């Protein structure tokens, strides 16, 4: 992502879109500047004298800085050396001539048992610009342009009031997306539509007023959405007191980074073990499609024929209570395996399709439930 100051947009009536980059020459120039620079300061100055759109160059430069390897500095050591210099200077009544100034460095070097050059070098490392560029970014101009265009979408959403997204019902993508929503303390409503899932994302206060408060967090959802391959996004964006609509989809968007968002196949070893056991006697589908229950997403672990299976591992009582409420409303054949020590009394009483396990679930405990759905 890049700061809002570098955002470039195209407005048409009430519609807004990022001014996507298609030409790679600016990206190539900024990358070239990074390759020729010994320090961050040199890189920034080299970019400053490039001709062209300042916002474009500045945005590209930000991304390049994020991608290059910059010298790490021991900021405590730097601070200690500088403090010694300042204290010596203060004690001497501050140097007014270059000779007096040199003496301060000499005295400090002697005190710290360092060379004068080393003291001076560390003294200047307090400024970010003086840090060395160890390795320029390992991306080509085409990839930098892809990342830039994704960053533009995200930065535009900094000012969004809400974001809607539509993507195929593929559990790996949805799982990460929903997890991100929770981690970012956002809210969502999900709906099934023609085999796709439609999401509406915003935050708690959005029900009370239009607010950009959640914009920077909504922007972080974009890579999870575009990772789906086929996707569309719609958002309301407030810029300069006016509200615009932003619409984009995998059909119309420029090329974006291919990097898929990492998905864990299994939540825990218990599930892996269970899969190993059951798949020996019955075909098991891992990560089946996501179920939508009253706007919430429910992600089962396995599917055997038409039977959904979920293993509820360790979590807080509150989590289990909400999970229970959700399960009770699924309305589809569902088998839930619950760790005995963690289950609430109501689980046992109300749901016939709940199997308790101790330590780890065993095949013999579940086989009678699974058998009718098992088509070998």
């Amino acid at each position, binding site marked *: 992502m890049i700061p809002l100051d570098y955002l470039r947009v195209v407005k048409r009536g009430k519609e807004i879109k990022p001014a996507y980059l298609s030409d790679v020459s600016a990206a190539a120039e900024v990358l070239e500047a990074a390759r020729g620079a010994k320090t961050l300061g040199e890189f920034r100055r080299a970019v400053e004298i490039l001709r062209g759109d300042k916002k474009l160059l500045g945005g590209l430069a930000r991304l390049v800085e994020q991608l290059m390897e910059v010298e790490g500095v021991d900021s405590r050591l730097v601070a200690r050396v500088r*403090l010694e210099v300042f204290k010596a200077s203060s004690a001497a009544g501050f*140097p007014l001539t270059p000779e007096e*100034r040199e003496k301060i460095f000499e005295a400090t070097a002697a005190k710290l048992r360092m060379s004068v050059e080393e003291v001076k070098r560390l003294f200047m490392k307090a400024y970010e610009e003086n840090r060395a560029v160890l390795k320029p970014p390992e991306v080509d101009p085409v990839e930098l342009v892809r990342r830039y265009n994704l960053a533009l979408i995200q930065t535009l959403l900094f000012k969004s009031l809400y974001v809607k997204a539509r993507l195929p019902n593929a559990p790996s993508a949805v799982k990460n997306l929903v997890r991100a929503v929770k981690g970012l303390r956002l809210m969502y409503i999900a709906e099934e539509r023609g085999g796709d899932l439609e999401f509406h994302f915003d935050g*708690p206060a959005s029900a009370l007023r239009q607010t950009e408060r959640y914009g920077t967090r909504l922007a972080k959802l974009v890579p999870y959405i575009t990772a789906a391959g086929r996707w569309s996004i719609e958002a309301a964006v407030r810029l300069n007191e006016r509200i615009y609509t932003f619409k984009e989809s995998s059909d119309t968007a420029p090329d974006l980074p291919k990097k898929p968002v990492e998905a864990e196949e299994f939540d825990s070893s218990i599930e892996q073990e269970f899969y190993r056991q059951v798949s020996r006697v019955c075909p098991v589908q891992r990560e089946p499609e996501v179920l939508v229950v009253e706007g919430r997403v429910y992600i089962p672990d396995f599917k055997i024929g038409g039977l959904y299976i979920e293993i509820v591992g360790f979590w807080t009582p509150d989590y289990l209570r909400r999970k229970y409420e959700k399960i009770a409303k699924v309305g589809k054949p569902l088998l839930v395996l619950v760790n005995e020590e963690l289950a609430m009394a109501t689980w046992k009483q109300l749901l016939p399709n709940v199997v308790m396990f101790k330590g780890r679930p065993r095949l013999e405990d579940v086989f009678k439930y699974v058998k009718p759905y098992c088509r070998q």
Partner: protein
Amino acid sequence: MGLILSWDRGTILIEGDIPTEVKRLSFVKLDARVGKYRALAIYYPRVLSVAQAAGVSVEDRVWSPQCREVRAAAEVKLRSYQEQALVAWMRTKRGVVVMPTGAGKTHVAIAAIAKLGEPALVVVPTVELVEQWRTKLTQYFPGRVGVWYGEEKRESCITVITYDSAYSAIEQLGNRFRFLVFDEVHHLPSPSYRQIAELSPAPHRLGLTATPERSDGLHVDLDWLVGPVVYRISASEIRGVWTADYDVEVVKVHLTEEERALYKELEKKYLSYIRSRGLRFRSPSDFQKLVMMSGRDPRAREALEAWHGMRRLVFETSAKVEAVGEILARHRGSKILIFTEYTSLARAVSERYLIPLVTHDISSYEREHIMAAFRRGELKALVTGKVLDEGVDVPDVDVVVILGGTSSTRQFIQRMGRALRLKPHKAKIYEVVTASTREVSTAKRRKRGVT
């Protein structure tokens, strides 16, 4: 089961037997996403009192307090006017106290925390102020003070936090503190910072400032965000009695030949555009027009760039760096604080005279140690950009040097205030101004009604 109120990330969820009086409140809305009523947390006291007046029992699940109670380990001694301010605020336990810099606003807040005995969140503008409040609070509440900013996030019974951190953390921290203190409360009404007040359910709120007024007029919102002004005392009422007397000297420096020629050229470019469009600048919002125009008109953009160029020239001329040398020579052994407009000039001064630098690009670790050494007197001078404009208490500064600044009177008062802590001798203030440039009138404007 009665009415149930609970906390949800900056809002209050309302469930159970909801009386119509509560449903009818304009700020209470049904949230279809969760099928419950919801209100911004700031309305919590209103919802509660309306429900109680309607006679329903309330199950209040909003609070998850940081600690049960706060007790001061030492008595907080107040000066007579501080005592008056506290009494005025205690009447409603909401509102703003206006006192000039150096009058000891912090002590009013500490006394209020001690008196209320509730967990408190203290919101301050800068990292330097976080440190300063932590030190002072710890004297009265040892072991119960935490800080929350950048690298260090440790919550405690009394937590000091920056406006920036509070803006994002209020969804997490809101229901832990029943008392909010806003230092330099004139920052609060801005569109983002005001959310700290809106997303907190704290019934008790105290704002502190020397000048609540804002040029954008948003200070009127302080009434509902924090409460009205409950106490006000001006600098002239306590000058010389509680704060030091001072003396302002204007030092004129000249641009070099080269700088002078460049300045004239930029000025010509700027003025010819302004005149060609018949623009007049009476307030900051008029200037905003030029900024807006520069988005479309390349000539406006050139004029704006010329204006910035002029500004940099007068603020950064090497003559100002020289002037610092003369002042240093004149005040050997005094405690000197130097302010600049741009970081680059602050750096130039720091590198030339090896004076410690406190700006945003210096690590907070280094800044902390510099401030501590400056307070102890191990460091006699310090140069800074705008970071220390506000509230930071640097005792016994004898000399303030203003190398550049805006025409804002507030900024001038605040910077001056650094030298105004009570001391036996007169404080000295130098304003270094570039002769025959716009800076001369800028400097005059900021002193209007002050000296």
